[in-house]
């Protein structure tokens, strides 16, 4: 489906000859690839994803020797080249890879890896492995460094979570967590349909208040409420007519990403979305559960990408995955794997170069039984900040990190 289809379907107004509503003209304006319109979607794989059974070194004997019961069989890996392939459940992402829009950054980690979930997830989220704990997140600091640019908007949203992820914790920016799109509009409980219109118009009147000056915080609150109601109405128009251009699987992650797609199409000005897929802490009997998680990831990511592409949004949106650590090379005694170190990150976007970045970590040159990292995760963050979101990374990360070349020019 091309943009014209989207417009016609979504509004029906064009056919009537009316001027396109504001949100549609914004969608058109967005096509000029203004970096201010770029969007980052983070998918956090919580629990420590087993990277070796995700991007599989299928041809490596050491892999099969270390994982006699858990190794992905040579002939079932979705082969990328003579050495590595993807887990068979990642067929959707393999399609993206073949299309050249999925980049795989291999061997991502940091020096002196910490194998505690909490500490390591904190390290990935704060991007401060060495320094003292400051309690704010890398994305939160990025938002705070651009406070004026995002004034009055919702610059970032965490979706489907009860608590705000540490990555988005900021001293100044208040990032909302919403469980569903219903949280982003005025809800009216038990109201007769005939009253809805009345309530909606009255809610708008609240923002117009007649008494008291419009200076100071009262004016600010009125302005904020009015902006909020406008954006929710816009969102409603979009979601009412929003047709996902690809079928989303019936999973939680897919449902969250579908909501993200709707919010992006609604042009709310949100630049960062954060969703999470949990359950990767696979210490025992991991084969089935890990495969299911990868299936959920792959199905959701590929549907999301296809949907965005059909809506002409794929080059404005970049999805990145990360997990707090990979797992040890050797399987443990209970058909699972224990906390390890380096692992990979996936980048899905029409703006990505696609392909592999960096070598697959060696299975023989290990650090205390763990894979060594080749790329510091902060290099990937720096690339996402500097080259994608156009937010200077050094103040956020504390120093300069060499970028990773996974974006198209």
């Amino acid at each position: 489906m091309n943009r014209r289809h989207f417009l016609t379907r979504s509004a029906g107004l064009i056919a009537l000859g009316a001027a396109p509503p504001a949100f549609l003209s914004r969608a058109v304006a967005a096509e000029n690839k203004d970096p201010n319109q770029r969007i980052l979607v983070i998918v956090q794989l919580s629990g420590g994803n087993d990277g070796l059974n995700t991007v599989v070194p299928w041809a490596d004997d050491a892999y099969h020797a270390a994982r006699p019961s858990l190794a992905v069989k040579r002939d079932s890996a979705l082969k990328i080249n003579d050495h590595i392939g993807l887990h068979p459940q990642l067929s959707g992402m393999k399609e993206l890879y073949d299309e050249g829009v999925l980049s795989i950054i291999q061997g991502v980690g940091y020096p002196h890896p910490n194998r505690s979930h909490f500490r390591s997830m904190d390290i990935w989220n704060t991007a401060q492995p060495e320094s003292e704990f400051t309690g704010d997140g890398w994305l939160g600091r990025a938002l705070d460094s651009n406070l004026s640019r995002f004034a009055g908007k919702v610059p970032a949203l965490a979706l489907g979570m009860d608590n705000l992820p540490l990555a988005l914790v900021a001293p100044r920016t208040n990032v909302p967590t919403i469980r569903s799109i219903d949280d982003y509009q005025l809800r009216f409980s038990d109201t007769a349909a005939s009253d809805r219109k009345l309530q909606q118009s009255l809610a708008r009147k609240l923002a117009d208040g007649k008494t008291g000056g419009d200076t100071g915080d009262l004016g600010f609150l009125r302005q904020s409420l009015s902006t909020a109601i406008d954006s929710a109405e816009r969102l409603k128009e979009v979601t009412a007519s929003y047709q996902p251009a690809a079928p989303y699987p019936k999973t939680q992650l897919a449902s969250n990403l579908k909501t993200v797609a709707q919010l992006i199409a609604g042009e709310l000005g949100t630049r960062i979305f954060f969703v999470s897929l949990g359950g990767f802490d696979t210490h025992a009997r991991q084969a089935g559960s890990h495969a299911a998680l990868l299936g959920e990831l792959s199905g959701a990511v590929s549907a999301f990408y296809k949907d965005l592409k059909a809506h002409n949004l794929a080059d404005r949106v970049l999805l990145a995955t990360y997990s707090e650590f990979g797992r040890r090379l050797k399987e443990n005694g209970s058909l699972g794997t224990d906390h390890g170190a380096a692992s990979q990150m996936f980048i899905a976007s029409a703006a990505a170069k696609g392909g592999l970045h960096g070598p697959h970590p060696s299975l023989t040159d290990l650090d205390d039984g763990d894979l060594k990292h080749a790329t510091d995760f902060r290099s990937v963050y720096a690339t996402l900040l500097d080259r994608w979101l156009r937010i200077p990374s050094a103040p956020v990360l504390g120093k300069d990190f060499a970028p990773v070349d996974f974006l198209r020019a």
Partner: protein
Amino acid sequence: MNPLAPYDSRQQGWTRRDAAHLLWRTQCGASEAEVARALIEGLEKTLDRLLTPPAEDASFAETAALLRQTAGDADDIDQLKTWWLYRMTEGPSPLTEKMCLFWHNHFATSNVKVRSAKHMAAQNDLFRTHALGDFKALLAGIARDVAMLIWLDGNANRHRSPNENFARELMELFTLGVGHYSEADIREAARAFTGWHVRKDEFWFNRLQHDTGGKKVFGSSGNFDGDEVLRLCLAHDACPRFLALKLLREFVVPSPGESEIAALAASIRAHDFQMRPVLRELLGSQLFFSAAARHSLIKSPVQFVLGACRTLEVRPNLKAIARIIANLGQDLFLPPTVKGWEGGRLWITSATLFQRANFAASLTGSDTYGKLTAPVTTVTRQAELLLACDADTAPAATWYDKASGSIESRARGALHLILTMPEFQLT
């Protein structure tokens, strides 16, 4: 004129709105009956009552102890939030709990790093013990508090490799504010706290790691230990000013002026950091009851949610309100950084406004957050109770007149609109 000159309620008046102003600022919200009581008792007696916590009755104390115990045993921070919210809503001294929250924000410590509901509870008890009392004693307690020592890396502060984390925050965030100390002061002060460690979940003075050598802080020299550095900070001119600014922003106006800061700082010094007489002076002052102070502060999520519940006489579902308060940006025991919540306008985004409005819809239209027990009255009376200011309540009145449904359901719909008004976001 001294901004802290006493407000003379006999001469200048003592109206429902004056009483509501005092109650909203010192506890979260005020029911019809509470406002009526304050109105009858008068300003002086009400202030005395607010500032003198009565003993806890046995059944409250028992439930609170049980909640606290369960949270600690299960090491469940969410459970600990319900304990604190229970204390805030049902406890005998809302102002004590308000000051606990003020100190939690001042000495902001997060369970993200402490990872122990027991230690967070113990720190919260420390805030309660000194909530309206002696700031000097509170500071001495916090410097030995296990959660704080974990939070600011006490055990890493050793003779040969001092860790400056606590010393820096002590000056920057706890007592003086940026600009009133040098990097050298921090380095020297950190040495005075070397060996202030945690062992077996308790404070432990580790003699072997303590640097007994000479130090120079703010120009004075001596073989200072930690307590002496605390005394030096308290003696510093910037300290009462720093506290004055924070108290004014919490209780009175968002941007206090120089004369107001100076007056309150003088009061803090004169009362030797005793919070009760300082607050007595502040809350009974001309400044507090001035037009500039009324409805000038944006309600924090705790004030918004508990204020609505208390005013509408809802015994809240504590788990549910803990969640909504967190979603609105004020996750108790988990402040975003050591700087705490900055608050004010930063509480407000389009998403949090919707969440506030939708909380109001659920509170008035369902039992999700608890049962609404306040008598349903006219829109005018409800608006006066909740807003206590001249606001345009026509939208709520229109709803009451024109919507379909029973009187009760229309009145609840009107309440929803009142709670959604920009005016209600202020206190």
